[in-house]
Every structure is written in structure tokens, then in C-alpha cells.
């Protein structure tokens, strides 16, 4: 128990320097853009007074470290500035858009785990037999399909050819649950399939390693049913590496969701990021980067903190 608390504390402490560096990187990334931000935002025709006013608003007339500290102070208070294109508070914009992405990503990852874990276990159990081969080939093929292409093919098949599902657009769940569901079916199915591949392969590989261990032979020799051996003895140990993978998968999705949201024209966080890049809306770009990185750090923190649940040995390290 004591080592568990120490583990959690150590893990929490380690995120602090990472988060600070993330903040520094996000801040300077935008400052590295060639040219005067005020000029870039207002265009070549802007008057001198407008430029000066904007520079003052962005704090551009102070030194870089001073600008950073002001910015960091605001960020810590939840003030990420205002969108240059539409004047909305960035924090609000991020939260609105994030809800949309989060629903899709979390549903897809949950579904992918629910399918991948039994499938991987089954393949490992039937190792080198026809079932195993089928699962491995399918999972490998799924891993090689880019999400935006699979999404496009779904759009073509179920949206245009068969006409079963609406092609473009999005309705919030709060407005019309049924319609919202129809819009998210294809994006969720696409993500689920794409992520299923890697998770199934991971699960199968670790289950095979566990199945070889002596304690499994011992459990079988004790006369336990095969079902009990697999569920109680193999599954928990084999799941641990897959669990770590989930953190990485979620992170990959946070970065990769933009392409999927573009295919299905979903107003999510990824789309916001891409739009803000095209519009050179620097406060929003900064906000998206910072927000996503922080979410990613938190997700990995949660994954790591839950890890001892599956593998108690980890706290000893």
C-alpha cells in the first residue's frame, strides 16, 4: 500500500516538468512564425493604430519572457484568450468542440477494446490454427487502412450507394438523439475498426506469452476448467500491456481525429485545429495544442495510475 502511494506520487510529480515544457513549447511555437503576429492577423492594409492596439492586446510590446509569464498566468486561470476570427473565448470553443470529439473517440475505443480483447484471447488460445490465422490477417489488414480512406469508403457505400446514413453534417446529441446517432455511426465504426487491428494484435501477442508460463500449466494441471484458466489466470496478466497501449491509442486519436472529422464534416476539436491553422488564428492554435497535450498527459497518467490494478508488480519498481 505504501509503495502504491509512493508510485502514484512519483507519477504525479513527473508530469509537472512535462506540462511546463509543453506550455513553453506551445507558446514559442506560435512566436516562431515569421513576421509580426499583429500584421499577420490584420493583413497588409491595417492602420498603424489598429496594429498598435492589437500588439498591446496580445502583449507583443513586452519582452518574450514577460509575454510568456503573462500568458501562462492567464492559462492557469483558464483564460486562453479570444479567437481572432470570431471573438469567442478560446476555452469555451475548445470545450464545445472537445465534447463532440470525445463522444466519438471514447465510444470507438471502448467498442474496439470490447471486440479486440476476446478476439485476441481467442486467437492466442487457437494459436497457429485457422481461427488464429484469420484473426491475425484481418487485424493486420485493418492496421494498414488509413482512417480517412476507410471513412471515405463507408461514406461511399452506406451514405451514397445504399443511402442508409446521412452523408455530411452533425447534430448534437442534446438536440435530437436519434438524428445525432445516425450521424456518428460511420465515424465511430471507422475508428473502432482502425483501432481494433492494433489492439487485437497486442492482446494476442501478450496472451500467447502468458499462456506459455508455468503457472498456466499448473492451473490446468490442477484440473481447472479451460474457461476458468483463460478468464481468471491468463486474461488479467495478458491485458496489462494492452492497457498501456490504450493510452497511446487515445493519444494517436487526439492527433489523428482531424482527418476523420474532415471526412465526415464533424465540428470536433481536430477540425477546429485545422480551421484555425488555415485562418492563422493563433490563440485558437495555441489553445488546441495545449489542450490536446494536457488531455494526452492526463490520459496517460490515468492509464499509468490504473496499471497496478492489472499488474501489482509495477509499484515495486
Amino acid at each position, binding site marked *: 500500500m505504501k509503495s502504491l502511494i509512493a508510485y502514484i506520487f512519483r507519477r504525479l510529480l513527473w508530469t509537472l516538468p512535462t506540462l511546463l515544457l509543453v506550455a513553453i513549447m*506551445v507558446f514559442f511555437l506560435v512566436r516562431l512564425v515569421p513576421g509580426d503576429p499583429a500584421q499577420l492577423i490584420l493583413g497588409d492594409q491595417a492602420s498603424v493604430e489598429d496594429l498598435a492596439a492589437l500588439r498591446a492586446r496580445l502583449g507583443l510590446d513586452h519582452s518574450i519572457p514577460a509575454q510568456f509569464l503573462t500568458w501562462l498566468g492567464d492559462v492557469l486561470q483558464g483564460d486562453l484568450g479570444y479567437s481572432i476570427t470570431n471573438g469567442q473565448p478560446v476555452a469555451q470553443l475548445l470545450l464545445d468542440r472537445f465534447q463532440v470529439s470525445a463522444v466519438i473517440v471514447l465510444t470507438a475505443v471502448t467498442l474496439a477494446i470490447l471486440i479486440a480483447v476476446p478476439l485476441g484471447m481467442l486467437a492466442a488460445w487457437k494459436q497457429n490454427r485457422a481461427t488464429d490465422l484469420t484473426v491475425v490477417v484481418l487485424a493486420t489488414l485493418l*492496421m494498414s487502412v488509413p482512417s480517412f480512406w476507410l471513412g*471515405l469508403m463507408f461514406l*461511399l457505400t452506406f451514405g451514397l450507394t445504399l443511402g442508409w446514413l446521412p452523408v455530411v453534417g452533425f447534430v448534437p446529441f442534446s438536440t435530437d438523439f436519434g438524428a445525432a446517432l445516425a450521424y456518428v455511426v460511420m465515424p465511430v465504426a471507422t475508428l473502432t475498426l482502425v483501432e481494433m487491428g492494433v489492439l487485437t494484435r497486442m492482446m494476442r501477442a501478450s496472451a500467447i506469452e502468458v499462456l506459455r508460463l508455468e503457472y498456466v500449466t499448473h492451473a490446468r494441471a490442477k484440473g481447472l476448467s479451460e474457461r476458468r484458466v483463460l478468464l481468471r489466470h491468463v486474461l488479467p496478466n495478458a491485458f496489462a500491456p494492452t492497457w498501456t497501449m490504450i493510452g497511446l491509442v487515445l493519444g494517436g486519436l487526439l492527433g489523428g481525429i482531424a482527418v476523420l472529422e474532415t471526412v465526415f464534416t464533424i465540428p470536433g476539436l481536430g477540425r477546429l485545429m*485545422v480551421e484555425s*491553422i488555415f485562418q492563422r488564428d493563433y490563440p485558437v492554435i495555441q489553445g488546441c495544442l495545449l489542450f490536446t497535450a494536457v488531455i494526452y498527459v492526463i490520459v496517460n497518467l490515468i492509464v499509468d495510475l490504473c496499471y497496478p490494478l492489472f499488474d501489482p508488480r509495477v509499484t515495486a519498481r
Partner: protein
Amino acid sequence: MKGRLNFLIGAALLLVILVMALTATVWTPFDPLALDLRARFLPPGGAHLLGTDEFGRDVLSRLMSGATQSLTVAAFTVGFATLFGTLLGLFSGYVGGTLDRILMVISDAVLAFPGTLLALALLVVMGPNVYGIVLALGIAYTPSMLRIVRGTVMSLREREFIEASHVIGNSEWATMLRHVLPNCIAPITVLATSMFGWVILAESGLSFLGLGVPPPQPTWGNMLSTARDHIDRAVWLGIFPGLCISATLLGVILLGDGLRDRFDPRTENT
């Protein structure tokens, strides 16, 4: 045995793509950039084997030219990440101390951005062009290589043959180059292979978003992006670039599996 088969299928797939890319540097059936407004949206078959796009450009020629783009970007990016990741990883693992700690904090922060997101961010600074993409993705992937090399070096550092090399009077440099580095080659190769796939995927994703290689230069990603707008009347525009990306990724995955089996016999059947 299975590893060998994986390796062969993977290598064959990649060879086909490579031949496509190399051929495109000297010859394509049509000029991939030539517009022909009388030949818009021609379906596959006839003179244009894989059809034409919304400007009457030959799809096969554009796919071939796209292969050159994708493979060049991937090769340079993986080269960048491997070179810097290996150098920094060697120093970090071998020298240790403050340098190691600083590099670890930096690589943690870089890794705190999901891969493509960091590349997106860096493209804001560098603008969408080939050099920008190589640099952006290269920086995003360097920490992964650094960590693998560092880990290998740290586990090697305590081994007898490294100590022996010191005892017989070899300098640190000689030990590093002659004894440490060769032992890192297996993990580096395996990671570089996977990385090649990540870059192909990331580059096509960025191009799909309109943030990658700028048009009219064809890439598989930006071909899919325009295909999306015409998918109702020209299905083939959406199918072939996707097949190219998938074939490349599949090749990379199988090659990687094959390599892993070869270098690490313990996981032969997994």
C-alpha cells in the same frame, strides 16, 4: 517460418511501390500535371488505365508521381529521426548524468504531443512544403528513436564485453562505435521500419487536410482529399490512392514483423 513469409510478402509489396516511385522519376504514362478538360472524369480503362480526375489528369501517372513524393518524404524523415535519435540516444545512454536528464525531459515533452499533432503545430511555423513536413515529422519522431537507443545502451553499459573493451585500453569513442552501436542496430532497424509506416500515414493525412505537400504536386493524401468532393461521380478517384497507402502500410507492417522475428527469436510465434 511464418516470419520469413511475412518478410517476403512485405518486401514484395514495398518493392512494387518502390519500382513505381523510381519509374515515375523518369517516365509516367502521361504528364501527371497536364490538364485536359475534354477528358475529365474518364472511368478506368482505355488509354487512361486508372481513369482521369476532375481536371482530366491521368490517375495512374499521378499515383506513380505520388509514390515518389511519399517515399521521398518518408525516407528523409526516417533518416532524420534515425540519425539524430541514434546520436542523442548514444550520448544520453552512455554519458548519463545531467545531459541525460535534460534530454529525457525534452523528449517527454515532445512525446506529450500526439505525433501528428506536433507535426501540425510545426507546420504552422514552417508552412506546408516538403521540407517543412520532413522537419516537422522528423522532430516529432526523433524522441522515440532516442529512447530505444538509450534503453539499449543502458542495458549494454553494464555488460562484460563493454568493460573488457575498456580494460584492453580502447577509448570511450572506440568502445561506443565498435561495440555499443552495432548492438543497437537491431532495435533501430525494427523501429525505423515501423516509423516509415507512421510517416507515410502522417504525410498522407496531412496532405489530405491540405497541410501537406501543396497541389498541384500529386500525393496520395491530396488525391484522396479532392476525391472526397467528387466521390459521387468518380468512385475510382477515391479507391486507388487509398489502395496505394494501404499496400505500403501493409508492406511495412509485414516487413517489421519479419524483422522482429528475425532479431528476437523469443517472439517467433507471436
